[in-house]
């Protein structure tokens, strides 16, 4: 298969369940090899969008291509991995049997499957549980084995619908590492997560969706640049100094020796420090607080949550 430059391309993809429009019109392009964050409030239509891209749910309108084939194409699914949101699996299978089953469904040759199976069990930390049935697994263990299942075929594109919702901190770091490895190998990752700190670390680009429409889409870098809130801790802050400080930024708030204000960007920091020192203040700390993705999320999506 010729590798298309876009792993995912959709135009006006729409899904209505009766009167309830879950996805209003999704127009999206995800270049191959990108780690793409798909963010939005509960009920925004993230899972439904993934399901349309995977052929689980038939779109009401619109078109889409996954790995160069129309959505739902069977052959293209050979190259696709998927960890469902509710990671429910046949719990009467052992971990090993479960991965073998899904590898077989991918038509993997037995030797390759066997090698891949051990690698992945090791990777997700379940090697010693490989002969245990999934019924005996905890939630996090199920999510881990589900992740292994999504990667068993060495996919070119993998959909992870909230892959860390059930994981402990170690498990979350594991997922981050796995995503980093996937990126290094050129795998496209479509990540749907509410854990924004994680998205911040792993994603190249993020889309915010609301009511099933993309409301904002940009590279993570530019998203996090720009205005910064700074905390200044200093002694001998005279009213004159404070007044001057207020002119260097905006929304200043002073509380004893602690002052916070918003500046244009990181570039304004040295000037701020120079001013304080020159005016005779005793500077103890100057801490820029990057605007967290969470604040952006609320700025972009709003607090009404879209519900």
């Amino acid at each position, binding site marked *: 298969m010729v590798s298309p430059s876009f792993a995912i391309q959709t135009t006006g993809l729409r899904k209505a*369940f009766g009167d309830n429009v879950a996805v209003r019109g999704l127009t999206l392009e995800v270049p191959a090899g990108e780690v793409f964050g798909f963010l939005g409030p509960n009920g925004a239509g993230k899972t439904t969008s993934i*399901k349309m891209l*995977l*052929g*689980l*749910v*038939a779109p009401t309108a619109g078109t889409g291509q996954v790995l160069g084939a129309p959505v739902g194409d*069977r*052959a293209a*699914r*050979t190259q*696709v991995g*998927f960890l*469902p949101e*509710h990671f*429910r*699996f*046949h719990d*009467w*299978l052992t971990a090993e*049997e479960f991965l073998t*089953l*899904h590898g*077989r*469904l*991918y*038509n993997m040759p037995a030797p390759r499957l066997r090698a891949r199976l051990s690698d992945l069990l090791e990777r997700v930390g379940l090697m010693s549980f490989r002969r245990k*049935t999934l019924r005996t697994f905890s939630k996090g263990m199920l999510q881990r084995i*589900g992740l292994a*299942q999504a990667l068993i075929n060495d996919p070119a594109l993998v959909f992870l619908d909230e892959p860390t919702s059930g994981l402990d901190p170690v498990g979350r770091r594991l997922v981050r590492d796995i995503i980093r490895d996937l990126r290094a190998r050129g795998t496209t990752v479509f990540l749907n997560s509410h854990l924004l700190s994680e998205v911040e670390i792993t994603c190249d680009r993020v889309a915010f969706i609301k009511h099933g429409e993309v409301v904002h889409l940009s590279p993570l870098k530019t998203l996090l640049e720009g205005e910064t809130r700074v905390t200044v801790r200093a002694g001998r802050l005279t009213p004159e100094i404070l007044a001057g400080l207020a002119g260097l930024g905006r929304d200043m708030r002073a509380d004893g020796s602690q002052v916070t204000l918003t500046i244009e960007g990181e570039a304004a920091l040295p000037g701020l420090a120079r001013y304080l020192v020159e005016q005779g203040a005793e500077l103890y700390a100057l801490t820029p607080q990057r605007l967290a993705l969470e604040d952006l999320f609320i700025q972009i999506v709003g607090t009404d949550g879209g519900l």
Partner: protein
Amino acid sequence: MATFTIMRLTFLEAARRRIALAAFLLGIAFLALFAIGFHFMRTETGLPTSEDPGTTLLRSQVFNFLGQMGLYAVNFLTIAMGALVSADTLAGEIASGTIQALVTKPVRRAEIVLGKWLGFAVLLAVYLTLMDGGLMAAVYLQSGYVFPNIGTGLLLTYLETLVVMTLTLACSSTFSTLATGGIVFGMWGLAFIGGFVEQVGALLNNATAVNIGIVSSLILPTEAVFRRAQYAMMSPVARSLGFSAGPLLVVSVPSLAMVIYAALYLLAWLALAVRQFNRRDL
């Protein structure tokens, strides 16, 4: 290829979820009960036990009658097993979400339906063979009696269980497990009553009653096919008398056309199961 993977998965599920074990133990208990019952019916009801040639006819008549009662019970048990496992198979996997990881693999949805169907078909064949075989063995070992036309009779019985299983699978592709159970049980009850009405009608030469039976057989041809199976395994004497006094009257023998209809009926439901499952949002 994927079809056989899913078929094997169905076997594994039956084994792991102890469904096979439960059915097997229930079957053993039933056969034991039947064997004991048969023993007492044979020895304590004044039935001549000697090999007096004059009583052979009467004896085989009674053995056939008792055996047919057992076969009827086995048939009911098999149908119930088939319906129970297939009612939950698609509906349950859709409800729990386990289906999602399966259908997003490079497999056709039809392969999943066919794989499950084949799996159940094989399980039912094994179960029916063991149960009816065990029952016939119990009769033979105690009395030396052998049913006529065993092959035809068993094939027809198997066809009936397949019809119920396929219908259940088709409902399960669209409705919830519980609704599926209700629909199948309701239809089966309809066919049962309809079949009974038909037999009584035939006995009383009432054309309307017979027609009601035929219509109900068209809705669900299970009773009709099973009656034909019974007819095949009936003793020749009873047959020549026009009817047996078995648990179900067999006065009006369903035609071969009804058997062909049942086979087509089965295929139609299987096609519908695939179609419905193909269209469904999962």
